[in-house]
């Protein structure tokens, strides 16, 4: 990872009427880094990204991208970014290649460079199989790949992806993560927003957790989990809903119940795992699951906000 900061955001504020959608956000992203904005719907992730892409104005703060001030050098900033929003921004009646050509034209790309970039997209994003097909004939996954290819056809150093895998099934989601990793391997700086904690954990070098327009925490996923998420805990699911009896048996431990699952907190859960299991079985309480669960970014978010990541809907 390079040392140069390619994105710098300082004290960014954006209001929608009375509502403060982005509230004094500051962060910076290193060149070549994959940086995640993690937060529930309505946290201000999309607004923040759209500001960075020049799609929205902001009220206060300073944004520097690729060494250019967003306000003063808006055109240069836009040329440095490949923006891929949640929705597919392709023309249904044009072929994928024609869509790519249109995107390339927006950046006044030469035909030679365009050919090279189409080859790159074919290789890295796997669009060659449907280059000649009209967008209306593509599956959802193909459209997303074509959309990403169109967003980065101009070979930008920075790629901004807004909820890139929302609505994907797990298999396609993993394929898409691989595409994002590929981009990183080509030296691209990736800034992505997500409300999927696993996605952030899987592909991001660093994550900023956003809540109500602010950054609540920012660090590498494993550091966040360790410092904020707490220690690993023992998760037990008992058969026949005998939760009450199990809690009585385990009264000497620090237990909490989350969705019919008993979570036992301990400094070292591996030490007590066998003992707890034996105690339950010896008193006739059988288990479906006994496992040690590491804290996730979801736990980090719960610790920070007191609620789950997926509780709210309807981000603006």
């Amino acid at each position, binding site marked *: 990872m390079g040392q140069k900061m390619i994105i710098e955001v300082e004290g960014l504020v954006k209001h929608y009427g009375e509502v403060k959608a982005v509230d004094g956000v500051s962060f910076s992203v290193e060149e070549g880094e994959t940086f995640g904005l993690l937060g529930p719907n309505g946290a201000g992730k999309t607004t923040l990204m759209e500001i960075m892409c*020049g799609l929205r104005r902001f009220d206060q703060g300073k944004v520097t991208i690729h060494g250019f001030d967003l306000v003063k050098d808006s055109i240069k900033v836009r040329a440095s970014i490949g*923006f891929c929003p949640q929705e597919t921004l392709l*023309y249904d*009646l044009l072929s994928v290649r024609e869509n790519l*050509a249109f995107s390339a034209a927006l*950046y006044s790309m030469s035909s030679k460079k365009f050919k090279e970039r189409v080859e790159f997209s074919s290789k890295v994003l796997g669009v060659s199989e449907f280059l000649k097909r009209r967008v209306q004939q593509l599956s959802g996954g193909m459209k997303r790949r074509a959309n990403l290819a169109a967003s980065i056809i101009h070979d930008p150093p920075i790629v901004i992806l807004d909820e890139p895998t929302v609505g994907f099934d797990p298999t396609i989601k993993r394929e898409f993560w691989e595409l994002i990793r590929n981009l990183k391997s080509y030296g691209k700086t990736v800034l992505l927003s997500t409300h999927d904690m696993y996605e952030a954990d899987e592909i991001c070098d660093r994550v900023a957790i956003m809540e109500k327009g602010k950054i609540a925490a920012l660090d590498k996923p494993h550091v966040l989990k360790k410092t904020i998420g707490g220690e690993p805990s023992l998760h037990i699911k008992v058969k026949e809903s005998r939760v009450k009896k199990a809690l009585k048996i385990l009264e000497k431990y620090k237990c909490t119940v989350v969705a019919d699952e008993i979570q036992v907190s301990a400094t070292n859960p591996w030490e007590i795992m066998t003992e707890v299991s034996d105690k339950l079985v010896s008193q006739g309480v059988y288990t479906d699951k006994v496992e040690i669960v590491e804290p996730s970014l979801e736990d980090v978010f719960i610790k920070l906000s007191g609620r789950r990541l997926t509780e709210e809907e309807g981000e603006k």
Partner: protein
Amino acid sequence: MNSTMGIAVKDIKYFFRERGTLFWTMAFPILIMLLFTAIFGRQIPFNATIGLVNNDNQPTLSEGLISVFNSTGLFTIKNFTTQTDALKELNATTVRAVITIPQNFSQDLMSLGHATVSLVVDGTSPDAAQLIRSAFKTSVVAYYKAVLNYTEPITVDEETSFVGQKVGYKENLVPGMLCYPLLFSSMVVSTGAIVYERERGTLKKIRASPIRPINVLIGKTIAALFQTAITILIMAVLAVTLLAPALNWNVQLLIPIMFLGSMNGIALGLIISCIGRAPQEASNAATTIAIVLQFFIGMYFPIEYLPTYLQQIGKVIPMTYAAQALRDIMIRNATFADLLIPMLTLTLSAAILYGIGVLLYRRWVEK
């Protein structure tokens, strides 16, 4: 490819792929031209059925009068035996007027030198009524002069002056019809330009790129010009083949005027497109504005028909200058020098409209 041409090429490709749009772009000028040809392409663009009740005892003279009336070619005569029957049909609007010639018509005319004929006209159609009255009175005077050797006290030596072509109704109409695409096609096509991108979400892609607003508008204009040119071409070809008007088709002058006129229409459409929040809203706005404007710019009738204060409005609408310039070229054989003022006016107004377009793009689209 540069970004401006990129937008134009994309829009033109899209135009050809959207079959409905393509169909209606072709169908619009064809339907309009076929309709206008059917209405105005004939030698005499009027025909009404007139009821005739001839009660004359000695019908020699009355038949002569009817023959003169019939020779105008404007009417089809339907005979009735009684005026009551004829008036029933007048009420049913199957005839537009009823002429009743009394029993002693010929006798009175020969002995007294004067006779009365009854004319009842359907007043629910003022234009037709006026035409029938006028034609009938003219026929009566003509007949009277012929049969009785009558001389009018004052003779009007009438002459019609034509600067350039000698024109008939269709020659006057064709330049007006060519304003249709300048006003309707250009505005309707460009109205969708921004608002549809917004609806599809693709405006985000354009706005996130380093393209400048003026380049977006120019790219959209090139595509809209292309579509408008197709409509103009179809209308012009059909006008020549179907109506065969005796007009001066000075392409070197017609093209710049049509280009400038289209630019004004397109710029107006783009302004609506920038402001419009939904395609339907923008489309309704463009249609309404175009329909209102057509009465101000002298497309179908001279702006002198308008009340004085409305004429003043017509004079500040750039398209009025395009309409007049087309007539001047095609009818009056205007030269480049004659067209300098309309050309400058159209250029200036297009520049102002594009300036407004850029401001609105920044204000409404990039907000």
